């Protein structure tokens, strides 16, 4: 009887060890892939690049389509274009609704076709969002969004293969919201 019990306990131990070790090893392997922390999205919007570009740079407009963005502060409104920075205040529902400040700085600024924003939170992550607006004619634009992030925390970095797809899903949802808002405004005009 005792022998059978020990056998079962051994099996329970093995199952629990596998449940822990297997995901960690999988995450470590997946974390080494070339496009780790990289997201790309493309969407066609029925608006011209001139109409679309302000939605990528103006705080009030950004708040409408970037979910969980509650405030955009501009420390120095006199600076425009390359080098202009703003603070994006995000509400983190998964952290008890805590507000988080992200510093966004324009690295490249060529309206209405190209924009590169460097975003970072000290001690957490650094990254950049590249926006390309391709004029398709007939008042249509293809918006290409390319984001690349590097997470600083080792545990969060281990979870990168899980974080990136979740972030990509959020980016796609935000893009869809942008399309819907911009097209509805364009129709009104």
């Amino acid at each position: 009887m005792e022998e059978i019990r020990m056998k079962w306990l051994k099996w329970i131990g093995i199952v629990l060890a596998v449940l822990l070790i297997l995901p960690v090893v999988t995450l470590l392997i997946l974390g080494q892939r070339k496009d780790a922390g990289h997201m790309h999205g493309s969407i066609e919007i029925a608006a011209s690049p001139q109409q679309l570009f302000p939605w990528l740079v103006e705080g009030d407009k950004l708040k409408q389509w970037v979910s969980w963005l509650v405030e955009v502060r501009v420390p120095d409104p006199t600076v425009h274009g390359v080098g202009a920075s703003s603070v994006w205040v995000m509400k983190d529902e998964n952290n008890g609704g805590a507000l988080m400040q992200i510093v966004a700085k324009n690295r490249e600024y060529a309206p209405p076709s190209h924009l590169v924003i460097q975003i970072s939170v000290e001690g957490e992550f650094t990254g950049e969002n590249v926006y390309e607006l391709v004029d398709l004619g007939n008042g249509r634009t293809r918006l290409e969004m390319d984001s690349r992030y590097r997470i600083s925390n080792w545990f969060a970095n281990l979870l990168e293969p899980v974080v990136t797809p979740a972030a990509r899903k959020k980016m796609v949802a935000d893009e869809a919201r942008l399309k819907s808002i911009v097209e509805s405004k364009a129709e009104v005009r």
Partner: protein
Amino acid sequence: MKPPMLARMLLLAVAGEGESEFVAGDLHEEFIYLCATRGRPAGSRWYAWQVVRSVVTLLALRMRSGEALHVVSGLSVAVPLLLLDRLWCFVHSQIPLKDGLSRAPGFLAVNLVCVCICAALCGSAARSFQRAILIAAATAVSATFALWAASGYTSAAYVWLMLLLVPASSLLVFTWRKFV
């Protein structure tokens, strides 16, 4: 003269009906003596302290006899589920531009698989059919509690699937173990 009610209830919860009778009897004698010599507050304090310091020993005793297996079963379903919920919160919190509380189906599937494995392990420890039923019920109750306490949004389909699969995997492993 009656000992503090909270302490008595705690004693009953951790020791079980059978064991608590003996322990409570011994404690009560000393409690009466202390109340008579040092006053009721001192007696109550002593009684409560004795119960608190015996909790671990009494629980270990119950587990060794297999009586508290359903308590362990409950914990071994709720704790992983709540830990996974915290993990998914952490993952979503790491999304650079943040996200809400809704969870991707993949995350929910991982929850389901992990919890079913835990419930199955609990079911494997049952020695009788009655105990297996009790464990299955405990895992279902514990899963319900964990779902209620979790912060992520869950769909009704996920909840029903969880409440069906968790006790089922516990019972299935018990049945399989009995016949193999």
